[in-house]
């Protein structure tokens, strides 16, 4: 009786140890806004991460397991999400988030826990500022804002701009300021600078005021939820100026949502779009594979960034030859010329992935990738 118990116990230990050795997974966390005001952005990026995970689900001979937590488009929830991933799910790296404010809140937790974090489309410089463990797969807003200003002033020849800013959103405030700095430096004049708050739906007062100032251009570094509705109201009030925005306006559904009002709208974005002419091979493969996986959904830049973020982390784990957070961090910091869907990625000193800035215009109810800009900084 006793012997049988001992044997059984030994067998059990062997079985448990055996599976542990064979399949100890590498745990990677993902925190994105899957509900809340910018849920559509987070959902697109999650689809990109999941597609990448489907393609490469093993590294260093170990399976990769994804842990996804919703940050609910809320700064506090975002910090909680990362805390949960680190403490409960014991992840070795986190990916996220869409939205700079959310990424900043999560980044503080990741930094304190010394777990590397790969930001997807959070472009505000403060996200990685002074952080040892926080990286991102995209360019930053000083660069993007300068590119928008350069394009407006040099290429379009527009000398008078108005700006409409969401004061409750770090991304919008930052991007608007960088645009303004560069635009003024180039010689342009900012004739009106007005504000609103996230969640507002009536912009008639601000727009009436802006229209009365007669600008050539209205720059709205807005979130997608507000951008289209601002344009609709502007056109209804008789605005005939050019409207420009940032990467947050990049969404495959912009035409179906904005209709006539978004015709002619120009926005800066990351250098990937299904309408891009000379696509890199990896971008082509991504586009094809995406269409196979989601036949009813257009490939989009957010999914591409989600995809790139996952691949950057996997690449770092492979280069490091270890799934220790510190080793991953060092390998991420040393990333050079990594071929991503959204361009070749080199992580610079401030932990940003340098890449050119793309320009997209809505023409004939279609999104067209029209240019790549080198900003005059």
């Amino acid at each position, binding site marked *: 009786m006793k012997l049988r118990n001992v044997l059984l116990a030994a067998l059990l230990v062997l079985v448990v140890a055996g599976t542990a050795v064979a399949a100890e997974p590498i745990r990677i966390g993902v925190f994105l806004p899957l509900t*809340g005001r910018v*849920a559509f952005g987070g959902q697109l990026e999650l689809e990109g991460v999941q597609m990448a995970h489907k393609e490469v689900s093993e590294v260093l001979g170990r399976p990769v397991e994804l842990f996804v937590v919703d940050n609910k488009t809320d700064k506090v929830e975002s910090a909680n999400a990362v805390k949960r991933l680190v403490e409960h799910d014991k992840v070795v790296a986190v990916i996220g988030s869409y939205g700079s404010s959310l990424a900043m809140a999560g980044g503080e937790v990741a930094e304190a826990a010394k777990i590397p974090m790969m930001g997807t489309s959070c472009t505000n410089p403060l996200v990685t500022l002074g952080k040892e463990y926080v990286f991102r797969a995209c360019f930053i807003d000083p660069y993007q804002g300068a590119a928008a200003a350069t394009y407006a002033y040099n290429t379009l020849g527009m000398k008078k701009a108005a700006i409409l800013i969401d004061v409750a959103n770090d991304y919008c405030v930052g991007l608007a300021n960088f645009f303004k700095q560069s635009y003024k430096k180039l010689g342009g004049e900012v004739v009106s600078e*007005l504000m*609103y708050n996230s969640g507002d*739906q009536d912009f*008639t*007062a*601000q727009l009436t005021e802006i229209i009365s100032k007669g600008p050539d251009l209205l720059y709205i570094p807005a979130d997608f939820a507000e951008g289209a509705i601002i344009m609709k109201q502007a056109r209804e009030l*008789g605005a005939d100026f050019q409207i420009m925005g940032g990467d947050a306006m990049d969404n495959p559904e912009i035409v179906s*949502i904005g209709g006539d009002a978004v015709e002619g709208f120009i926005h800066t974005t990351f250098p990937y779009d299904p309408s891009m002419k000379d696509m890199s091979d990896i971008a082509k493969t991504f586009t094809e594979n995406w269409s196979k996986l989601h036949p009813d959904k257009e490939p989009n830049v957010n999914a591409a960034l989600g995809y790139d973020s996952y691949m950057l982390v996997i690449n770092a784990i492979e280069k490091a030859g270890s799934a220790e957070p510190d080793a991953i961090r060092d390998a991420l910091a040393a990333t050079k010329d990594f071929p991503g869907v959204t361009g070749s990625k080199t992580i610079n000193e401030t932990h940003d992935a340098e890449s050119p800035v793309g320009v997209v215009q809505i023409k004939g109810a279609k999104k067209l990738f029209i240019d790549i800009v080198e900003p005059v900084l």
Partner: protein
Amino acid sequence: MSGSLFVQHLFNAVTLGSLYGLIAIGYTMVYGILRLINFAHGEVFMLGAYFVFFGISLFHLPWGVAVIGSIAVSSLCGIFVDRIAYKPLRSAPRISALISAIGVSFLIQNLAIVIFGGIPRPVARPDWLVQVMKVGEVRIIPLAIVVPLVTLALVLGLLWIVYRTKPGLAMRAISKDIETTRLMGVSVNKIIAFTFGLGSALAAASGIMWALRYPQIQPFMGLVPGLKAFIAAVFGGIGSIQGAVIGGMLLGLIEIMAVAFFPQLSGYRDAFAFVLLIIILLLKPTGLMGEKLEDKI
């Protein structure tokens, strides 16, 4: 500021104000009768807009049918919410029902995200409502005139129901003393359900008008307008139907004119509304048209 610019601002303000008023009368009616601030009002507002959207885009209903259908379905939603979230708490302290209302509000918002998706959707509008008319320098869409008229019509209709019909009489009786009303042989729960149905119909109607004016709907669209309308209702004197409309109008006017005259302070537009609420509560706790508070003996 030039004259035409001012008139343009004024038009924007009246449209926005009457929308606030329209939402506020729903709040104020339920409060007046049950002393419950129905925080789910903003969510029924959102559902109303979504039902019209689905009616038109999925079932290809004609516009008018979709609107009536949406108002009917939204009333049922309101009655259902009352049945599951408020009725069990009828004899509990008032604060419990209030918390339940906040919970219902969050629940509906997030259910909407799961079911409808988080992405904003465009709203199809009948052309005649949005054909821009130019009067001198001022640009007006017919909708900007239709919205205040609809608000006026609904207020008159509501006043008629409350003051001229039997259910209205019962509603007013419940607002005075629920127990005595029950003793008089009134089916209190039926009347309360009717109140919620009516309140939700108003919420849906205002959601539809809102979606016509700002033709993009998303699950969180009821949040900010709901809060603003709540302020309008308190401003006008919560419980007073006329007060809600006046409160809404003034709130719209203040918000738009604050931006028009102090463009550099436009980021504080919402703050104007909330500061106003605080001032009103300090100076006149019962609002502009509110009844005097009297302790019941």
